[in-house]
């Protein structure tokens, strides 16, 4: 489902929640939908250089980026190759990472602590934690569905990126 373009917001309005911005490049346009690929790739923020390496395969930055392509309603008339800035509310990013990583981890560690306390065996604790991780991921799925239904997981088009704009947006 394509993501909508942002409604106009005043960035100077203190009552508006702050937006976390990210850069993406238009890789395809199909009808009224533009497909975008995020630019940020590594933990040290080396986005521009890694896009030039051209390597492709399992685990490379290119295959990693391909899997992260996302659709956006092409109301602003984007063309292939254009770089755009997309944004989400900062609380949405926290909720998303908490749902994807935090919740399964807490369930897994909680179950592990209980199993160790009751059984006191490494094997049983390990098996319990693996099962609990599965349960936590099911919970994460429900949480993500709830967030998605409220439209909090959808990045929005903010503006076209300027020529010198890099993935390190301060």
């Amino acid at each position, binding site marked *: 489902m394509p993501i909508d373009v942002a409604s106009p917001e005043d960035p100077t309005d203190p009552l508006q929640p702050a937006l976390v911005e990210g850069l993406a490049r238009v890789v395809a346009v199909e009808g009224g939908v533009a497909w975008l690929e995020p630019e940020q790739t590594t*933990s040290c923020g080396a986005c521009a250089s890694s896009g030039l390496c051209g390597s492709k395969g399992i685990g490379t930055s290119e295959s990693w980026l391909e899997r992260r392509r*996302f659709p956006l309603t092409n109301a602003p008339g984007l063309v292939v190759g254009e770089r755009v800035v997309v944004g989400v509310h900062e609380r949405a990013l926290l909720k998303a990472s908490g749902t994807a990583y935090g919740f399964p981890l807490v369930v897994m560690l909680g179950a592990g602590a209980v199993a160790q306390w009751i059984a006191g065996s*490494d094997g049983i604790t390990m098996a319990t934690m693996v099962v609990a991780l599965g349960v936590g991921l099911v919970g994460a799925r429900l949480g993500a569905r709830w967030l998605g239904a409220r439209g909090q997981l959808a990045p929005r088009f903010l503006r076209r990126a300027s020529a010198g704009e890099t993935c390190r947006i301060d």
Partner: protein
Amino acid sequence: MQEYILLMVGAALVNNVILARFLGLCSFMGVTTRIDTAIGMGLATTFVITVSSMANWGVEHYLLVPYGLGYLRTVTFILVIAGAVQFTEMTVRKVSPPLFQMLGIYLPLITTNCAVLGVALLLVEGKMTFIAATLFAFASSLGYSLVMVIFAGLRERLALAEVPRLFAGPPIGFIVASLLALAFLGFSGISTS
């Protein structure tokens, strides 16, 4: 119980992954421009460090030690970590594609984070039980996240400060990081006896 609490405090604060062991410095400087992304990165790294350390503990105790393959430890651990990262990615993608896409835009790839391998190797050095190893890995990554968030907060404030042109950008960041490391040095005075 007290033993586990001391282990966790030691891993998170006294021997902090970033400021005492100097691991994960790349993400420390690269992903700390905003508190929100630092928290997201911290959560993702916490998940990967904990899961991969659990897997590495199993590999060490059920494969490398019984078959005398200790010399393959580093290579094996790198493979296990890469597998854990791929597993995490695939799982999040299956669990919720919109969540996967959104985190992909705002959170960077964590495969190259040396803190993940460092913690796994420290577990072997410590000869810990499974639960102790898991808690050590979890606490180490919590310490990593804590420092990331503190440093991101400082950098957000620095962005508003008037810094001499010579020190603007990374130089003042490194100076602040060194002051933060000095502050964390104070935790080394905590007695665990």
